[in-house]
């Protein structure tokens, strides 16, 4: 069912979410703040991506992989019982049903195919919840590449299941032991690896962040979420669009993917951050991990450690395009507490028989809290992943 037309194309992009150009800027945000050693690699990557994306053969190979291997398109589910409970109409974009269990596979299939095209033989990735690591390990197995995944020591503990999955898939999982020992530190280690092995290694970055061209390239690979959802909503809503489109925001890849399908409509776009990792919420600009964006930091510029129940959102920064969308008022960003997330997690399981990942339980938590202000509306939420990986952690949290 997936045709060429369901993959993102230039003319499907709305002007506000367009090509950030050679300097990789989204308004005042973005850029390429990397060590000199990596500048040629980033430039080469941009060139390779532009040429691949203009190549119909690459596009159709990717769309075949997404359909026949990853299981796209993912459905949109009308949530009758949850809608009744919340008092408004809820639609879920089911990225949890993709192969490997989250939206991350869209980006990884694109980047792994690009890495192959560039002649790279080794993939490097960082991971928080382990979903991006699992997706990258999966692609490496599929394409016969070597794979190393950096993961904070704290996250290795709370997402053990995914560590085991990565090992089964043949990846080498290396603990990041510095700083907060979470996602931020895993990114540092991945960048250090890349600096040393830039000639044969491809850094498969897992969110819409990092130096140009990553924020734009990762968004482009996830636009498939928004394009499908736009069509699916049109069918369900008599040609209309939802009133609100919402998604959780860590680095911001699943959110940017679904937002891109609705940026040129009057749907309200709402990103939901964890209270302990609300980079956009705090609105302080900074530069780390290759780009200028909003960044949690102290008064002299030391990056603060995020704190969240969800390993995938436990990150003090955010992708630069989200900072820009917030800046121009096209999207707004709300935050929820860990307690609200635990409730959101259970709410979906109880009412719809779907156990969500803790990351997207953030969007559910916001939807539940805002039931009064959302009354009567139609809300499309990106269910970015399934919660199997979180079950052991939730057994502890819920004291069972």
């Amino acid at each position, binding site marked *: 069912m997936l045709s060429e037309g369901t993959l993102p194309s230039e003319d499907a992009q709305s002007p506000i979410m367009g090509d950030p150009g050679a300097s990789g800027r989204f308004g005042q945000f973005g850029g390429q703040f990397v060590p000199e050693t990596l500048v*040629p690699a980033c430039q080469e990557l941009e060139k390779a991506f532009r040429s691949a994306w203009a190549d119909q053969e690459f596009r159709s190979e990717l769309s075949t992989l997404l359909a026949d291997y990853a299981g796209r398109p993912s459905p949109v589910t009308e949530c009758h019982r949850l809608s009744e409970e919340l008092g408004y109409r809820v639609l879920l974009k089911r990225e949890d049903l993709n192969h490997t269990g989250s939206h991350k596979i869209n980006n990884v299939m694109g980047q792994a195919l690009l890495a192959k095209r560039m002649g790279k033989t080794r993939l490097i990735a960082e991971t928080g919840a382990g979903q991006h690591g699992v997706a990258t390990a999966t692609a490496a197995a599929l394409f016969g590449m070597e794979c190393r995944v950096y993961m904070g020591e704290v996250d290795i503990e709370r997402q053990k299941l995914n560590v085991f999955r990565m090992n089964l898939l043949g990846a080498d999982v290396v603990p990041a032991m510095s700083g907060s020992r979470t996602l931020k530190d895993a990114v540092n280690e991945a960048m250090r690896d890349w600096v040393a092995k830039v000639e044969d290694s491809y850094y498969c970055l897992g969110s819409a962040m990092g130096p140009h061209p990553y924020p734009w390239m990762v968004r482009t690979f996830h636009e498939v979420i928004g394009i499908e959802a736009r069509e699916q909503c049109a069918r369900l809503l008599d040609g209309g669009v939802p009133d609100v489109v919402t998604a959780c925001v860590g680095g911001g890849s699943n959110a940017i993917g679904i937002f891109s399908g609705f940026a040129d409509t009057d749907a309200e776009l709402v990103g939901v951050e964890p209270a302990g990792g609300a980079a956009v919420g705090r609105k302080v*600009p900074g530069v780390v991990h290759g780009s200028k964006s909003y960044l949690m930091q102290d008064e002299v510029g030391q990056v603060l450690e995020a704190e969240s129940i969800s390993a995938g959102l436990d990150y003090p920064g955010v992708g630069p395009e989200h900072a820009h969308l917030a800046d121009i008022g096209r999207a707004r960003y709300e935050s929820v507490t860990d307690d609200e997330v635990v409730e959101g997690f259970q709410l979906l399981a109880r009412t719809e028989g779907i156990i969500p990942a803790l990351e997207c339980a953030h969007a559910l938590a916001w939807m539940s809290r805002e039931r009064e202000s959302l009354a009567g509306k139609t809300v499309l939420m990106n269910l970015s992943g399934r919660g199997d990986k979180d079950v052991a952690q939730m057994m502890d949290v819920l004291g069972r």
Partner: protein
Amino acid sequence: MSEIGKFEHALRARRESGGKILVPYITGGLGDDWIETLHAVAAAGADGIEIGIPFSDPVMDGPTIQEANDRALSSGATPQSILAAVRESDIEIPLAVMTYYNIAFRAGDTRFATDLADAGISACILPDLPLEETGSWTDAADAAGIETILLAAPTAPDERLPRICERSRGFVYGVGLLGITGVRSSLATSAMDIATRLKAVTDKPVLVGVGVGTPEQAVEVSTVADGVVVGSAIVNRMLSNAGPEGVGELVAEFRAALDAG
């Protein structure tokens, strides 16, 4: 062309006298006696000193400098405390600060450049601010009289090196290997290569750093380069509590080796 600043002036003077340039790196705020260490390093024959202002996420640094950063930060070091101590120190040889761009960006480019100048710092290295992103920083630094030292890496294509050299002030920092800071058992061939390539396109002093960890390696690369930056080897000494004297001794060994050639 801009005027030659204090840092570059001192380095050129050493080169013109037929000597090789030695710029040690020390982590600012590491230990109570780090200012004494600064004096000891100057007295041991350094031509200039790089002072690291610790940053929470040093992506260009290996385990040694990461640990030094962490220790300095947890003992309460801040950019302000480090600069205040430098201002009081009365060191005569030129000083450069090395930190990551967010520290400058957070303060504001102009404010940070002015703070450096007020503390008596001559130059600044921001390893995550490559040529294409230098604009707003170099405007502020130039205005405050701060020399911005740019890095040139082995991965740079030939056409890129002259552009880096053109914009760099103080010296041109040749990155000796593909990788992060740290002591290696031998000098990478890329160290000689980058020195050769840079010397072919610039008259500015060319120093090689990253992976230059022993006096022998310093001598070897200085057969082509004008001199070296030595970081992790020095910081290792600081971390092992060698004290200002112990660090000074190591710097003196590098000086003696370079002078003997």
